[in-house]
């Protein structure tokens, strides 16, 4: 079972419209998919008789503000424990329609990871059982890892220009 075989199998199953952007980084296969395909794709990989990608190691959000209509993304890291093979699945959504279906129906561990991605990027996971902030203060009124917000705290008073030679 090679990365080439996995990629060919996924294209045969879901078509080139839904599985694209196939690259290999550091020996790990990367594929890009769509919001409509992600849930069936995850189920297919889970139930596949030889691949057996049954462990979601990570799920995270990402923000590329300069890519039109693909500003936000979600990245899934899967691990096939039996074959010791890893797989990265990406999907991108536009900032106007920032909705991604949840995969908590398959992986219970995705619950907190999706809440974290919502907390920091404002990605809406449709069907999530409890989509609330998980790490930041409840009364925070923005999603801090979006690149439209400054990383620094706006209320800081001691970092004046005279001290920093600006």
């Amino acid at each position: 079972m090679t990365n080439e075989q996995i990629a060919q199998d996924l294209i045969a199953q879901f078509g080139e419209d839904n599985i694209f952007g196939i690259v290999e980084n550091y020996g790990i296969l990367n594929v890009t998919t769509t919001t409509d395909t992600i849930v069936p794709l995850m189920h297919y990989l889970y139930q596949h008789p030889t691949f057996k990608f049954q462990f979601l190691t990570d799920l995270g959000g990402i923000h590329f503000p300069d890519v039109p209509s693909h500003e936000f993304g979600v990245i899934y890291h899967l691990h096939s424990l039996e074959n010791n093979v890893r797989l990265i699945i990406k999907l991108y959504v536009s900032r106007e329609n920032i909705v991604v279906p949840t995969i908590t129906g398959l992986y219970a561990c995705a619950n907190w990871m999706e809440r974290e991605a919502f907390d920091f990027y404002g990605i809406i996971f449709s069907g999530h059982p409890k989509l609330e902030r998980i790490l930041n203060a409840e009364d925070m009124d923005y999603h801090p890892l979006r690149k439209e917000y400054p990383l620094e705290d706006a209320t800081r008073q001691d970092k004046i220009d005279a001290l920093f030679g600006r």
Partner: protein
Amino acid sequence: MSDRIIKTVDAPEGIEGQGFFAGKLDDFVGLARANSLWPLPFATSCCGIEFMATAGSHYDISRFGSERMSFSARQADILMVMGTISKKMGPVLKQVYLQMAEPRWVLSVGACASSGGIFDTYSVLQGIDRIIPVDVYVPGCPPRPEQILDGFMQIQEIAKSEQRRRRESPEYKALLASYGIE
């Protein structure tokens, strides 16, 4: 044992005679308070490790009458905040402060507690004086135990000369009101 040096605090100003000592009550209360401050260690990170060294036998904070760490806020006299306080932790810290009985003092140890330190970021409170009044700031990242002891001794000096009923003074009431504390 003959070369052992034992130091005790000096008696306050007063009139001494055979079998009696007369002085101001405020001085006696200040003396007692300053030399038995019970600290509440609010330690969240590396400054807390320095505090543990301060409390250990080498630096020995019990020389100042403070070996009794009070993990109950009700019985604590001095709140020692050591480490980064995130914005989410802020209300917890304020509640601990509110639970302390008067008289109470606050020692802010290290750059993070005093100003946010290097954590100039959305999740970190930029100094605990945003939410509670602070008596003494100890700079450093983290400060050495000697510096923490120096800050502690400054609190002792404040405690010695503090009015016995500080909380009734209009200045103190105005200070607490500026933090939204009754």
